[in-house]
């Protein structure tokens, strides 16, 4: 027994090293985006507050640009709204006309599936393999996990962890996250992921051979994940090739959103998400 203690004492540095290294490597391996301990997460109070204070100093310089971008987006949305009203109520665009009210109510009930809010980005990175964004709204402001995050109508990420006042968002630039996306022109869908190399390009996989693909085709969200509405822009196809020995294209997609310059993001909540998830879980349990 005495010898054992002497042995442990003699090699205590090596033992400590092996112990701590095992601990940290097991953290790396078992780490899961959806069930993480909130402690190891930048949505916690100390890191969140620090990031918020610091980012508010530096983002002052960016707000002019952000305002211009938002004004542009408003103009586009207003035009789209006009067009939509004209289309759904041919012959009139006066929503106040009582005859057309039921129809508009019906339309807006579809729109009311998604609820939109905004938040400010207080921390962001593009230089790692697994990038996350921290935003300055949390449970207190009605943010929930699985809400979609967009910027200027383009897909940015998904809310993963929520604390009282902050949330972390898994960025599209995170090689551990995939979303479904489709080619707008012909509606063929595949899965979109990032290979961790270039922060301006992501990869669209699982598009079969026979589908006509062109450089410049727009890639949009599918709405299958229920976190995003269908048809949000993701990017354009910049390059594609046929992988050796596979039946699918290798497609490079140039991102529309500038991930290095995110200041204000929009949060999308699908009010029917719980209902959809419940329904889908019946299929999973019942097979």
């Amino acid at each position: 027994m005495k010898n054992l203690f002497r042995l442990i004492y003699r090699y205590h540095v090596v033992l400590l090293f092996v112990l701590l290294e095992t601990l940290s490597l097991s953290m790396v391996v078992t780490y899961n985006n959806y069930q993480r301990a909130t402690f190891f997460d930048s949505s916690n109070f100390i890191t969140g507050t620090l990031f918020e204070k610091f980012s508010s100093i530096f983002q002052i310089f960016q707000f002019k640009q952000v305002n211009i971008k938002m004004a542009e987006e408003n103009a586009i949305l207003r035009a789209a709204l006009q067009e939509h009203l004209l289309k759904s109520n041919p012959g009139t665009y006066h929503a106040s006309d009582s005859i057309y009210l039921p129809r508009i109510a019906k339309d807006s009930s579809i729109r009311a599936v998604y609820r939109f809010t905004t938040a400010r980005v207080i921390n962001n990175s593009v230089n790692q393999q697994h990038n996350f964004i921290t935003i300055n709204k949390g449970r207190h402001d009605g943010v929930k996990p699985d809400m979609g995050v967009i910027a200027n109508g383009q897909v940015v990420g998904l809310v993963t962890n929520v604390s009282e006042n902050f949330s972390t968002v898994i960025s599209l630039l995170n090689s551990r996250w995939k979303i479904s996306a489709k080619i707008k022109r012909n509606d063929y869908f595949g899965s979109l992921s990032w290979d961790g190399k270039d922060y301006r390009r992501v990869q669209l996989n699982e598009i079969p051979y026979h589908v006509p693909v062109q450089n410049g085709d727009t890639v949009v969200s599918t709405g299958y994940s229920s976190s995003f509405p269908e048809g949000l822009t993701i990017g354009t196809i910049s390059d594609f090739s046929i992988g050796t020995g596979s039946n699918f294209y290798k497609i490079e997609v140039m991102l529309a959103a500038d991930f290095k310059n995110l200041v204000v993001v929009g949060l999308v909540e699908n009010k029917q998400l719980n209902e959809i998830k419940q329904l889908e879980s019946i299929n999973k349990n019942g097979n």
Partner: protein
Amino acid sequence: MVINLLKYALVFIVSVLLQVLIFNNVLIARMISPFFYILFIILLPFDTPRALLLFLAFSLGLTVDIFTNTPGVHASACLLTGFIRPGVLQLISSHETLESVSAPRVENMGFQWFIGYATFLVLIHHFFLFFIEAFTFQGFPFILLRIILSSVLSVVLIVLSQFIIFRK
């Protein structure tokens, strides 16, 4: 003793803050990102007990991990750096200097020695960090290029810091 303790606590806080608030946002040519914070491990006194060195390196890594949402990645890389540091020191300097001088500083050990020492530790740290982060040997040449270029930038920043903020 107490002054020393406060001094190293300050170095710890300043290197972590500089890393998470400034250097984590740096990305040059879409591949170079510096990891400046291991300055803390580099600057620790020569007579730091090895077990303490491991604990300090581990907590440094874990602190940065919390800010970057990468539990374990920086912690394991720092731990390895802390484990190897005494060996590196014995390799590049004589026993007598390690006994007579208190801490690895430019003014104590000379400019050339400091660059060599910092490069050694930075390379070990970056090599481990980038591969743990990628968790694959796929695209080896690209990751290797990232490691080498990022290490160059980190060493430059660490050496510069010796002349600007951490002068004492």
